């Protein structure tokens, strides 16, 4: 770096120590100090000069002091950052829950307008073919079967066949997603299934 530039920056450091640096210069200086260790050392020495002149206690280890304070702050900031990341991670797990609820609502709307009976049967078959689902909702399985039997014979046309596949894959994929989780996710899955069959 050119010596004139260095001197100009050092003059800014001097003014900064005195709180006399204009705003626009301060912005640049802060960014430069982030990168240039030598200027930080200069700042420490300028600060020390004032102490020496005033006959204040000379704290020659000021760089070590500053480094220690900032290390402590950095470790706190990192810890806070981890907490934020964990919080974000928690939020990301709730996204499948929300999307599942949205899908369930759309699905319910769809049932009301399209191939009601076909979808019912497809849904039951899908559940029956998914071991994970059975283990969750065994209690109401008989009731559901009875309810389905009481329905009219479904029309197994092409459209119903497609709906069956969709319903099965939907339930399978949600069962797999929910498998590692207890509590809200499992509850959500049960809720989705019940919502489907209570129409």
């Amino acid at each position: 770096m050119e010596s004139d530039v260095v001197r100009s920056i050092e003059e800014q450091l001097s003014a900064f120590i005195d709180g006399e640096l204009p705003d626009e210069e301060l912005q640049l200086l802060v960014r430069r100090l982030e990168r240039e260790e030598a200027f930080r050392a200069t700042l420490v020495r300028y600060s020390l000069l004032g102490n020496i002149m005033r006959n204040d206690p000379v704290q020659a280890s000021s760089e070590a002091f500053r480094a220690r304070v900032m290390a402590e702050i950095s470790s706190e900031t990192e810890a806070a950052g981890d907490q934020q990341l964990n919080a974000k991670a928690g939020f990301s797990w709730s996204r499948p829950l929300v999307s599942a609820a949205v899908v369930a609502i759309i699905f319910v709307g769809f049932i009301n307008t399209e191939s009601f009976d076909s979808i019912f049967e497809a849904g039951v078959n899908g559940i029956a073919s998914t071991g994970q689902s059975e283990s969750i909702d065994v209690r109401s399985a008989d009731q559901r079967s009875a309810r389905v039997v009481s329905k009219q014979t479904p029309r197994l046309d092409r459209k119903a066949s497609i709906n069956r596949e969709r319903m099965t894959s939907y339930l399978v994929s949600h069962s797999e997603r929910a498998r590692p989780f207890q509590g809200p996710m499992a509850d959500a899955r049960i809720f989705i299934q019940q919502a489907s069959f209570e129409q």
Partner: protein
Amino acid sequence: MGNRASDQLLVDRVKAGDKHAFDLLVLKYQHRIVKLIMRYVRDPAEALDVSQEAFIKAYRALPNFRGDSAFYTWMYRIAINTAKNHLVAARRRPLDSAADISEPEEFEWHANLQDRDSPEAEALGEELRNSVEKTLRELPDDLRVAITLRELDGLTYEEIAQVMECPVGTVRSRIFRAREAMDKTIRHIMDEI
């Protein structure tokens, strides 16, 4: 821009997540805070610990700093309270509390601080003072007066400009040149630490 506005700018940056801005506030005020705390805590090593604690408390509390007072005034209060709390805690602490330093790096830090009180550290401080005083005496009058008005009398650049009947820019330049000259004499001493 005065100290308050300059500090507020740094505070705003810290609030926006720029840790380096707080680093500058530490660099700027550490000597004053240590000096302040040493009025309460005589032991230099303890005073440094308490000062460090005060800065960390300030950093944690900074999001709540509204800027009603100057940063230093706010920091000053935190430092005083931290020092007082330290004294209260010290009265309750058993005398052999130094044995609580279990981490090696903690021990090294404290040992290093205690070194500052050693005859070698005192000699170092004396050497720094002598070098600065000698350089100050040898400075041209305009530089010596400018730096003295600033460091010893605490005048602002504007006030110094009025006293010395020169532009503020000239004051800034004179103060810098005085510091530059003194810095040359202490730099090699500091490098040996």
